[in-house]
């Protein structure tokens, strides 16, 4: 056997190797794909404007009590405004407010109940944001977990999970959710005498649970498909050959490769859930009084939209702007992870 000479390293010749596909050329700077996406996002003007809008609403929600405290003392009631106190002395016999927008009530007061509309609006940002983010987070966990398990294990487990995904995807979800929410509410509240606040709180969490139960399938399907193809990739086989335990393979080898699609999916889910909550509240199965919610306010205010537009429009603008900013940011995030998607 002819003895081969010791390896001579000509790195330069390897650098020009034509086996390097073009997409590997641009990332030569020692950054992970996530860092590359982040750098792209920071250069995206739309993303920056949207982030500013979202930040604005986050601040409104967090500092709602402080913002409301900036309103002047009402000369008639002699009290500071808050979102829940009813002031029938501020409305006439037809339920129309007797006071307009003023330093005490920046957006006037609510017809019929006389509650401060600015306080209702500022506090109304809270349930939208909490439901949007909590439901998106929870459904991402569920979707990723089921997708990982189904895609990696295959076999009967995968068949069952796929069937459940198909099943949920073919349900008329809005109608079903509308029907289930009051039923679940009754089941939880059965036999207890609850205050309106307690009922409202129960409804809030029931809503999140239902949104998650009916919202995980898209991501699960995506993750399952990706895992099925990643599982056959040689780096997973290499990890198995080394003896890396299955759990580590899933979480350390496969999952990091799915960070992009998962972040994109979660960022698109947030506005979707906020929309869903508002739609449900409008149709009568969402949040209930006395919780301040934009969706409920829109539903109540539509009856007086012509005579009292100040009731309707702040919530319409708040909801639309927040959901629009979150959606466009989601689109920007997707473009940052996959620049070819916007051509």
């Amino acid at each position: 056997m002819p003895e081969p000479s010791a390896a001579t390293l000509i790195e330069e010749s390897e650098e020009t190797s034509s086996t390097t596909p073009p997409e590997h050329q641009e990332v030569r700077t020692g950054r992970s794909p996530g860092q590359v996406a982040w750098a792209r996002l920071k250069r995206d003007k739309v993303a920056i404007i949207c982030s500013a809008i979202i930040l604005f609403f986050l601040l409104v929600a967090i500092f709602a009590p402080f913002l409301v405290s900036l309103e002047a003392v009402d000369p008639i009631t002699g009290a500071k405004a808050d979102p829940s106190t009813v002031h029938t002395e501020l409305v006439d016999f037809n339920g129309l407010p007797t006071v307009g927008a003023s330093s005490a009530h920046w957006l006037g007061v609510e017809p019929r109940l006389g509650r401060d509309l600015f306080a209702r609006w500022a506090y109304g940002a809270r349930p939208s944001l909490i439901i949007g983010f909590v439901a998106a987070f929870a459904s991402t966990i569920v979707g990723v977990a089921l997708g990982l398990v189904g895609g990696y294990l295959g076999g009967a487990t995968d068949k069952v999970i796929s069937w459940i995904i198909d099943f949920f995807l073919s349900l008329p979800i809005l109608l079903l959710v509308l029907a289930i929410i009051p039923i679940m509410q009754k089941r939880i509240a059965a036999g207890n005498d609850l205050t309106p606040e307690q009922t409202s709180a129960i409804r809030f969490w029931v809503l999140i649970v239902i949104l998650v139960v009916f919202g995980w399938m898209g991501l699960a399907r995506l993750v399952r498909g990706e895992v099925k193809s990643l599982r056959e990739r040689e780096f997973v086989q290499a990890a198995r050959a080394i003896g890396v335990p299955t759990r580590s393979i899933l979480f350390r080898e496969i999952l990091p490769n799915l960070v992009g699609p998962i972040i994109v999916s979660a960022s698109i889910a947030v506005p979707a859930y906020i929309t869903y909550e508002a739609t449900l509240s409008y149709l009568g199965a969402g949040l209930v009084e006395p919780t301040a919610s934009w969706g409920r306010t829109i539903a109540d205010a539509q009856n007086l939209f012509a005579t009292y537009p100040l009731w309707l429009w702040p919530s319409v603008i708040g909801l639309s702007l927040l959901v629009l900013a979150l959606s466009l940011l989601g689109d920007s995030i997707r473009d940052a992870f996959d620049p070819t998607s916007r051509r």
Partner: protein
Amino acid sequence: MLTYILRRSALALSVIMATLVSAFLLFFAGPSDPAQAMCPETKCNPARLEAITKSIGLDKPLIEQFLTYFKGLFVGRDFVYAGDTVHCGAPCLGFSFVTRRSVNEELFTRFPNTVVLALMAAVVFVTVGVTFGILAAVRRGSASDRGLVGASQVLGSIPYYVLALLVALYPVILWNVLPQYSAISAGVGPYFMGMLAPALILGLVTSASYVRYTRNSMIETLSMDYIRTARSKGISERTVLFKHGFRAAMSPIATILGLDIAALLTGTLITEQIFGVDGIGRRGLAALRSFDLPVIMGTVLIGAVVVVVMNLVVDIAYSFIDPRVRLS
């Protein structure tokens, strides 16, 4: 091929059956008592409550209720009402607890209104979506392309019900630019004119995603080698676009169209409610408020069947186009 259709149909059937069983358990085994809801609070006493419970069959064991319901779906069943026996033919969805009319009558008479709304919306979103999508693809990178894509993103991002509500409130109710909905019994002309506003807003908002689908599909097709070959042969740009590009670009759009039927159903539900269109979505929502379980069940079932059947049709149609699908 036949086996694929059978296998796919069996899957679809299993989904429908699972929907039926789980919906039944959810509604009929639930804690909500429809008899209580039907019993007027001022005149309600235990005897009357019991009579109502008995008359709508809620006193029987759950399994018996289910079997009765199941049998009704496939062979029909008879109802005894005010001394008369009323036959309800298959697929019998039961009798409304509230109106005491058959659910079939309640829902199927309203179904055409929903279908008309969905079809009119489909005409709007397919024409608008595809036209603007192709326009954007052909003028790729130009200001009009960016404007169209941006507008479709904005339109598709704002909560649909807010847009629909604003259209219903301002142009229709306040300014009377477009007529309000009226039943077909009031005349065919006013009926379709009344459908215009809901169909337009539903169609326009849905078209937002189709502008982007069509644009991307068209751009992908136009970058294919065979398009370049066609151009290099000197074929007119018009022929290249419509004869070669358009056809290939449309097949993915057709698939998405079939699969979007679930989203469209959700859209009609909201639209019907906001514009007062007397369709099954609006009827279902009304039934929710009075806990009229058979009507809710019927609406959910019809919705599930429509979605499952549409998905099935798309899958089978697609397997004719692309035989690889059958093997997976």
